[in-house]
């Protein structure tokens, strides 16, 4: 049993060594030309920016570099078990070349990629190739001992003196055995360290390619802030709901109960008065229902629960006094919290548009692409809307921030105003 296990582990180690050598070889051979190509194209493309050509080519080239780097991230996870997080900033899809180029160039992740490429084509290349060399080189040593030494030292090679295998000069069968001994040592080293060495390659990649600590710290800061906002907002919401229930529905139900108690007392003595009170009680309960309905709409609109975001926004648009066109392209439903945040964000933006813009038309577009829910609300009003002027857009920004969503406002004086919102999410 014991022997078997040892054989197994020895066998699996040998397989691991061969796999590391094979993969390393492929990786080295394929990635070297690609890395050189990426690096050269990037340098040329950036150099061409001043004459304009670079503006068009740079986003393409940098996207290629990112694809290459991402492919290597996947390989690092699959082959080396090393996770390398990617931290690219989202680039606006439909922006002009100028914006795209400079958004990408301002992204520290881009520069990290460019620092990584030269490292990858040198140290990265060597560390990937080394396991293959350690496995292949001993084969030559054994071949020399098996008789290859005659060919390598005889015939036309005579004038070159002894054949050097590593540091062993091979000139006869004895020294050829010496070479074989060295080969055996190298093979043992390979057997023991090939896999580790291969992993060194991925660790090197991670060291250069993963986001720096300051970026992570920035991310933590943003998360802390948005979480605090979310907690504050939901606490305030709860307080508002409590107050509304307390002053509204609850109070009305108390009144209904009181009316009914009085009716009980009056029903024999003064039926006419009792009837009046009954009517009053019915009105109170209807009012309580109406208030609860409004309250529910403010917590989670029923259409949203019943139909999802698309129809909820359509229903919202139908309630607006301004004619509104809604276009929805959603293949499924987002998570309930995301739907809710998106709904209230749209609702707030629409309220703003109706109240302040003076627009007589509004267009809403909802679609999902590249893992993002994208919503734009456009009106033909007088413009001049901005985040942070107490316009309610700050609240929207905060609401979306909880879900890593972003808000952008384009509202030149004279209009039109376009508010774009983006929330990363998946549809199911």
């Amino acid at each position, binding site marked *: 049993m014991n022997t078997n296990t040892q054989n197994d582990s020895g066998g699996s180690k040998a397989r691991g060594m061969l796999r590391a050598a094979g993969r390393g070889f492929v990786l080295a051979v394929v990635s070297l030309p690609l890395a050189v190509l990426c690096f050269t194209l990037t340098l040329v493309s950036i150099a061409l920016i001043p004459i304009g050509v670079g503006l068009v080519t740079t986003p393409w080239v940098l996207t290629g570099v990112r694809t290459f780097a991402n492919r290597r991230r996947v390989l690092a996870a699959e082959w080396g078990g090393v996770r390398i997080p990617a931290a690219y900033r989202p680039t606006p899809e439909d922006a002009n070349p100028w914006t795209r180029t400079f958004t990408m160039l301002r992204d520290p992740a881009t520069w990290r990629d460019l620092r990584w490429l030269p490292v990858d084509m040198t140290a990265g290349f060597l560390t990937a190739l080394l396991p293959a060399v350690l496995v292949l080189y001993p084969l030559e040593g054994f071949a020399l001992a098996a008789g290859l030494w005659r060919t390598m030292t005889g015939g036309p090679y005579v004038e070159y003196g002894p054949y050097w295998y590593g540091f062993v000069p091979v000139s006869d069968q004895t020294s050829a055995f010496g070479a074989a001994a060295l080969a055996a040592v190298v093979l043992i080293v390979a057997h023991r360290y090939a896999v580790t060495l291969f992993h060194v390659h991925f660790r090197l990649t991670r060291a250069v390619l993963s986001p720096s600590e300051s970026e992570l710290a920035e991310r933590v800061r943003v998360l802390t802030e948005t979480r605090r906002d979310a907690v504050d907002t939901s606490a305030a919401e709860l307080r508002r709901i409590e107050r509304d229930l307390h002053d509204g529905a609850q109070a009305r139900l108390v009144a209904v109960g009181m009316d009914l108690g009085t009716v009980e007392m009056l029903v024999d003595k003064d039926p006419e008065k009792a009837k009046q009170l009954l009517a009053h009680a019915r009105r109170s309960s*209807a009012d309580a229902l109406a208030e609860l309905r409004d309250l529910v709409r403010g917590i989670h609109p029923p259409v949203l629960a*019943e*139909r999802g975001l698309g129809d909820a926004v359509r229903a919202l648009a*139908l*309630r607006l006094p301004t004619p509104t066109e809604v276009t929805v392209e959603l293949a499924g439903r987002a998570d309930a919290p995301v739907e809710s945040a998106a709904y209230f964000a749209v609702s707030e933006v629409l309220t703003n548009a109706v109240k302040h813009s003076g627009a007589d038309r509004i267009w809403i577009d909802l679609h999902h692409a590249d893992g993002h829910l994208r919503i734009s609300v456009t009106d033909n009003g007088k413009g001049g809307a901005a985040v942070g002027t107490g316009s309610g857009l700050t609240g929207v920004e905060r609401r979306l921030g909880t879900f890593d969503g972003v808000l952008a406002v384009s509202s030149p004086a004279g209009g039109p105003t376009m508010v774009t919102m983006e929330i990363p999410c998946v549809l199911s």
Partner: protein
Amino acid sequence: MRVVLAEDLFLLRDGLVRLLEAYDFEMAAAVESGPELEQALAELKPDIAVVDVRLPPTHTDEGLQCALRARRERPGLPVLVLSQHVEQLYARELLADGTGGVGYLLKDRVFDAEQFVDAVRRVAAGGTAMDPQVIQQLLARRGDDRPLARLTPRELEVLELMAQGRSNAAIASRLVVTERAVAKHTANIFTKLGLEVSDDDNRRVLAVLAYLDRDR
């Protein structure tokens, strides 16, 4: 008149059964979920279905979808949809086929038994019963509508009641005027809105609703 009722909350279902039976309706079935409703509608062929929008198992708009499907298979099947909230979006979907026999009311309306039963009878007879809130939403959206602005306050009142699906006689008794006066108002409204006058009550209601729901 045979009724199929679908409502998932026991208290409301029970109350509605008692109310309808008190007014001499025959309860063919009172079910609590979408699939049961589907089956009951197919097998029992009721004269009218009274349906809650939100039903198990999905607790989304299962009841509404069920009713819409049933009406596609049996055009004109009278359906009265009840809900805790009314949406113009849903009203539009119910009215889309233009055949009538449709009701859409807030659940609160059962408080007034007479009015509610009247709505059930109207829908079963192929008429329309739209919740006052739906009509108010429709009217509110047309704040700057020129032809509507030309109506007198009295004509607006008549328009609102008409859009809810009420007959001339019902409007007359509600506003405490003669039927002839209502007929005169109605004729004025149709002229001012540029709609074709029709003697058929139901066709008139649908024309008014279509006008109010039309995009500007």
